């Protein structure tokens, strides 16, 4: 019995030591998602599952309202009567999270939606960036009338007049509970009329719960 026990003990030690290091090394794989495949849900921060609905909702609201309202006399260019010229300055991230490579994509999606709407015609981002560099103005300084005029003049000089400035801003609010937390994401689109200074805001919100365990969802939000 003693010998058997010793054998088993030694064998166990070896097996345990090897098992502790267990696992297999595999190659990374990838697949192309279908149109109707759901987005992956970010476990620690927001991702496509958050930003895409926010963009869709806020842009739809903004375009819907603008379509109903009687617009100002558009700046017009090359006979494109009826289209308001819009200068999308950029996306400002004031949330608690880094959005990393999503920022450029958020800009592009919003810009594409606006351009495709038929209500607005957008100024190319390359012109916008060049004008910001030329004037050395920060996006947040464009709310001052003098700065706005200077910026508009810089774009007019290169044949890109515009009627509106558009700003996008992402903010967040966090509520914590015993290690789990809920984060509310808000995307706000702010349209500023450069002639009058009037502004129009639309926003979309999305709430997301982050939990330490799979049961966290049921604990805080029920079945």
């Amino acid at each position: 019995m003693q010998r058997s026990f010793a054998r088993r003990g030694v064998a166990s030690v070896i097996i345990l030591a090897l098992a502790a290091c267990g696992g297999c090394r595999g190659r990374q794989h990838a697949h192309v998602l279908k149109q109707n495949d759901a987005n992956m849900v970010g476990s620690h921060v927001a991702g496509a599952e958050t930003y895409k609905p926010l963009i869709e909702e806020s842009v739809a609201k903004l375009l819907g309202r603008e379509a109903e309202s009687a617009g100002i006399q558009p700046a017009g260019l090359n006979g494109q009567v009826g289209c308001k010229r819009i200068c999308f300055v950029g996306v400002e991230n004031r949330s608690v999270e880094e959005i990393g490579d999503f920022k450029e994509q958020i800009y592009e999606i919003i810009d594409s939606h606006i351009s495709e709407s038929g209500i607005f015609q957008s100024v190319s981002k390359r012109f916008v960036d060049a004008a910001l560099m030329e004037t050395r103005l920060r996006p947040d300084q464009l709310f001052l009338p003098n700065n706005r005029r200077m910026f508009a003049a810089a774009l007019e000089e290169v044949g890109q007049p515009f009627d509106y400035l558009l700003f996008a801003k992402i903010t967040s609010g966090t509520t914590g509970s015993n290690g789990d937390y809920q984060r509310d994401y808000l995307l706000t689109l702010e349209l500023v009329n450069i002639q009058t200074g009037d502004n129009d805001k639309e926003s979309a919100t999305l709430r997301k719960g982050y939990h330490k365990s799979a049961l966290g969802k049921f604990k805080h939000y029920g079945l």
Partner: protein
Amino acid sequence: MGITNAEVPNDEGMTKHEARRLGKVKLCPCLPAMCSLRHSAFVILSSFVISHSSFLCTGCATHADHLRDIRSAYFAGDLDRAEKLIDVELGKRRGDAGVLKLERAMIELCAGRPASAERLLREVRDEFDHLEQRDVAEETVSMLTDDQRRAYAGEDYEKVLVRAFLSLANLMTDGQDAAAYGLQVAAKQQEIIQAGCVDSDDNPKLAYQRVAVGAYINAMLHEASHSNYDDAERAILQVAEWQPDFRFKADDFERVRYGRHSEPGNGVLYVFALVGRGPYKEEAVEVPTSAALLVADRILSVTGKHTLPPTIAPIKVPRVVRGSSRSEIPVFVDNDPEPRGKMETITDIGKIAVQQAEAVAPQVLGRAIARRVVKKGAIYATKEAVNRGSNPLAEFGLDVIGVAWEATESADTRCWGMLPDTIQVLRIELPVGEHRVSFPSGWNSIAGIPTFCGEKIEISDGRNTYVLACFPDSRLVGRILVSQP
């Protein structure tokens, strides 16, 4: 409690086991095959240990030994020789190609071939990502030999720095991917820290100091866009948190929060320098642990049925050693006799490497002890299998094999050995046009004045220009790289 056949007393009142020890029982004649198997086990183990010992004894030089000449050549500025030595090693040690490619990439970067350096670094990044997964066969072999048998997946700080150097190398070419690599620096750090708590709640990697150069590059690029000041501000706050003694953090924050990239008619020069000799690993002996293990195996040998191989060969573990450091380098612009400023450390690689090694030292030591336990256990099991307890000579022979087996272990000293001790940076706003940037590089003993090395640069309105130089000691190694993506 049950009783096995071996414990049933025979006619003389002895168990078979006792009788066998006294030589008063014959082995069962119907089990010649079993005896043969036991003998085979003994022969296989002996052959494995002996062949492995001879293999290791003939080539037991560690990576640290191989690296010594390469580092010397590189730090002396002899890039050609360093390159040749690495190529020789690459030919001989294909299993360590990843870590050797890192050294090669440093040479490429300093020699003024950043695109080639970027390609190599990208290969290593992908290889390390693959190798950081566990492989049971490799782990088993490493338990029976040593950690050098495992494919090298890089230390945590190396995995992060690969991405930081990718960003720097890309800045010196077209700069198109520099921001992406910069983001990868932060993402990899986060991934490493999160992975540190898989096995327990106590995560030693939470104490890791972060590599701030990636965040700094991101801040620099966001600011140069003239529109992403919010991201620049966020990145500078990360820099301030991750490299708290970075002297320019307050100025940088003030500028990205309230100011602007540069005055009209000006551009910005960023000077990066790879300064000092970086950390490396050497083999260290864990004396207290070895002594404790020796005492433990002696106790077990006295109380157990068989002896265990004594822990004569000490337990060896890698130890990260800081290389030589150098103070901040002054930067001169045009013919101004006064320096325009002194560079500031944005990432203290030596400190980070030592700190990370200390954080995971218990795990490294734990693996070394587990290996010894496995080896001693294997010898013990062999003694049981061949049942040589009655033969002190065989018992002694197996102990000798065990000691020899343990003595073949070497610490895994593989590391990225050509890293600098620090990465330093200086931001200078300059008027548009051509300038010359220079650094002190040695001392003219005849004239009694410092010598300088420099390079012409072009500053464009509202844009960044980048300079990268390598100063392992007081002299420049390789070329000064200039880029305006």
